[in-house]
């Protein structure tokens, strides 16, 4: 499987580390309930089809990416950089969010 890193270009999946479901947002600790935390830390869907997930290009540019991947075909719809540098590297494929 190749992941289209917005900075490095398409690279073999072996250069990346899976970072889990990217639709989960860390709760605000000032207001979050125990249920919110439980959901963030433990609850994961296991969708058949489109899945938005984090991948870390640890053996490359070390950027964290959000990748939209089909869990059946492994086809990647799009990839983008997460964080302050999101705008600095071109989004790959279709919008992830």
């Amino acid at each position, binding site marked *: *499987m*190749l992941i289209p890193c917005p900075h490095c270009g*398409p690279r073999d999946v072996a250069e990346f*580390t899976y*970072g889990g479901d*990217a639709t989960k947002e*860390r*709760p605000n*600790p*000032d207001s*979050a309930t*125990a249920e919110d*935390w439980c959901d*963030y*830390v*433990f609850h994961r869907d296991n969708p058949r089809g489109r899945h938005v997930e*984090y991948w*870390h290009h*640890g053996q490359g540019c*070390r*950027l*964290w990416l959000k990748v939209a991947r089909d869990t059946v*075909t*492994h086809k990647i719809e799009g990839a983008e*950089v*997460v*964080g*302050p540098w999101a705008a600095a590297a071109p989004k790959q494929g279709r919008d992830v969010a």
Partner: protein
Amino acid sequence: MSGYRLSSGGQIDRARPLSFAFDGKRYQGYAGDTLASALLANGVDLFGRSFKYHRPRGLFSAGVEEPNALVTLRSGARAEPNTRATVVELYDGLEASSQNRWPSLAFDVMAMNQLAGPLFSAGFYYKTFMGPTRKAWMLYEYFIRKAAGLGAGTLLPDPDRYEEMNAFCDVLVVGAGPAGLMAATAAASSGARVILADEQSALGGNLRGSASAQENLAGLAALDNVTLLARTTVYGYYDDNTLGAVERVADHVAAPAEGQPRERHWTIRAKQVVLATGAIERPIIFGDNDKPGVMLADAGRLYVERHGVAPGRRVAVFANNDGAYRSVAALTTAGVAVSAIVDARREIGAEAQAIAAASGAELLLGQVVTRALGGQRLSGIEVAAFDPVQGARDGAQRQISADCLLVSGGWTPTIHLASQAGGPARWDDSLTAFLPGEASQPWRAAGACQGTLDSAACFAEGAQAGAEAARACGLSPNPVSLPGAKTEPLADVPLPVWDARPPHGKGKAFVDLQHDVTASDISLAHREGFRSVEHLKRYTTLGMATDQGKTSNVTGLALMARERKLSIPEVGTTRFRPPYTPVSLGALAGQARGSHFRPTRRTAMHDWHVENGAEMQAAGLWLRPRIYAQGSETVEQAYSREARQVRASVGMVDVSTLGKIDVQGLDAAEFLNRVYSNGFLKLPEGKARYGLMLREDGFLWDDGTTWRLSETQFLMTTTTANAAPVLSQLEFLLAAVWPELKVAVTSVTEQWAGMAVSGPKSREVLASVLDDLDMSNEALPFMGVRKGHLNGLPVLVARLSFSGELAYEVYCGAHHGEAVWSRILEAGKPFGMIPYGVEALGTLRIEKGHVAGPELDGRTTAEDLGLAGMTSRKKHYIGSSMLKREGLTDPARLKLVGFVSADGGKIRAGAHLVAANDTSSPPRSLGHITSTTYSPALEKYIALGLLEDGPERVGEKLVATYPLKNIDVDVEVVSSHFFDPEGSRMHV
């Protein structure tokens, strides 16, 4: 003795004779021979014994599909079992031996297995060894495996090298026959980067050796944008148009040349793929169809045309299509006698008739071969009339003498790769064959693999596929001229005949020759209810041998369809999986073996450690000194001496492997304060602090000291094991959780060599070597960090202690590590300073009750380890919210305490703690031991462990039990601070 060498012809070099041995007997062949063709030329027709019944077997094919002629190639460490003699290229001095026979190939004791035929029928293993008789398997497995099997591998290490190669191209063309050659030519004309790979020893496929192919290949070879790979099997088609291939670089010679790999694994990433993988001929089933001398028709042609070898002296042909007539023509041209042509069709075309007439053979139309005759080899055939609806008729069989029978049941397109990267195969009723399904990746098929058997049409299709592939890459191909484009008059459309046996035919009729699966096994599977094609395959093992049923799958499906009274596509087919042909494990491992299996990480002082007697041990990828044994010291004696000397005077240990992360930025302190469970905002410059990191779920994750080098710069240390995960987590937090923080994190693990100088004399030693640092307690207090110089080299000195002694960590640029290490040891000489290893490091920390990896096992909380005071209540940090969960605050959780051996016995890590008077079996576990050591300071075996109500049990006697080894040690529960609990020694 049926085969022989023709006096002329073939693509062999008669001026280059080669000597070789099979089963110890010497033979001669020529350059250009395969092992199979050379043995056939020498009249050898017995190549092996079959898998279950040990029946004699000969050559069945001339290619990768060979089910019978499996031999062990070479001997000793280079012995390779189960190679197909049909693809082994002959070289001078080649040695091969037959397999699965005992004591000899000609006389095999196990051949009596066939007398017990019903015993080994489909499902034999399930029926015999499942259920109440399962235990019998244990008893008989050895004998059954010995009786039924393939060749034996060698246990010696492979002396040869294997390599990997990464390749990228616009167009990969798999198969270099007529279609593939044209596809590569057309694609290359656009300037596309083209790779053309073929499994055979030379490119060209059916055109091999022809003038037009030679010219075409020479033209391609001259292009910079084309890579030609002969002897390269593309075996697997993976995601994102990535294909796996194995190039047999030096498999066709006795041993690779210096530096040369034996095989090279190619990972090919192609934008577009053209599959021109050809087709494999299939047989027709009849009684005793496995007799040596029975061979696929096209194989007979190849032995004549390619190798100049006649497959027999009296050849009969059995066909249901025109393809076999090409073989007849080739044999006639070479002067090989064809005695009879048996064709199931009642009518054949004019061209076929002309070929038959020219051969002088008797032409028997509307008839089939019902049985092969002979003992260890073919001596004749039985022929009977055939009706397309009723099949062969019983009785009135005629016998014809023959020493070779060439059989053609039509062609099976080689759709393995297409199937791996596409939808279900499509059934073609006129070809009675499965064709490639819909592509799920960017490939297109051309030529025989999609049912086009005519050469002229293959040329055209190949050229078109190559041009389309180039266009799909955004390139413009030029038109290519097609060689010798005349349509062949022979039609390959077969009459569907699968099983030519009459209703009461004699002899075993084999479908899968390699796995000894017969037509009656398939009937039996059907009677027993195994009707799905997937069940049929598993129950009978049809198509599951090393040849993956290349010559048997479709026939097997046809027979099942007959049983179920369905059409073949209704029965369905199984999906092919990689590899297309067997791949050696060496090729898959590549260079990743021996010292390259995993890379090794060495500290700057590595050479010094080794030169000074250190016994090195792995810590992840790192190598660390375990002990520096003197004389005949045991490990325990060595680390005890080292630890004793640290407490008595001074020692030094290499701590370079700790993870080191540079944390910089305006928000660096705020960031650390959110990452660590204890406070970091108020850490002053020039000070270090021990910090705890939790996971989001509240459990402990990592610990280490972090040093504030300036207002905005920190040097974080992590455990050796978590260096990489901690950095990734920090990067994640800065990207996904707190993108507003201005912080940059960088691994500087490799930048700094680190050494811990510990012991009451450490201050004196360092004071004597540091150029510019005041080492007094006032100038460099506990947890103080200073920048200084040692012999002019910049160093960082931090006053930290994990041993309970006065101690410092000295960090310097890694290239200076060895110089600084040596200089400090030299300065320590007057004090008897010693280097110590990680064993003594562990001893010293356990004596102080400091936790490490064995206690931070992912199941413990800060409170469990007595570190509750380090979890701030005044702030949020990673893990703080989940830390309050009931399960993590339960007072019944196991707590850290110390143990001393009460009976002098050595306590084992992992031992369970049980009450001394607990007689239940097994006794109830109250906790377990995590870290153990002999304590030279206490002169006792001591341990850390996790215990129910731990602190309340101090003073109690328990048993540390290790039932696996039957070891029980009486222990006393004590405080985990074994040594100098007041900490007076390190605050001097």
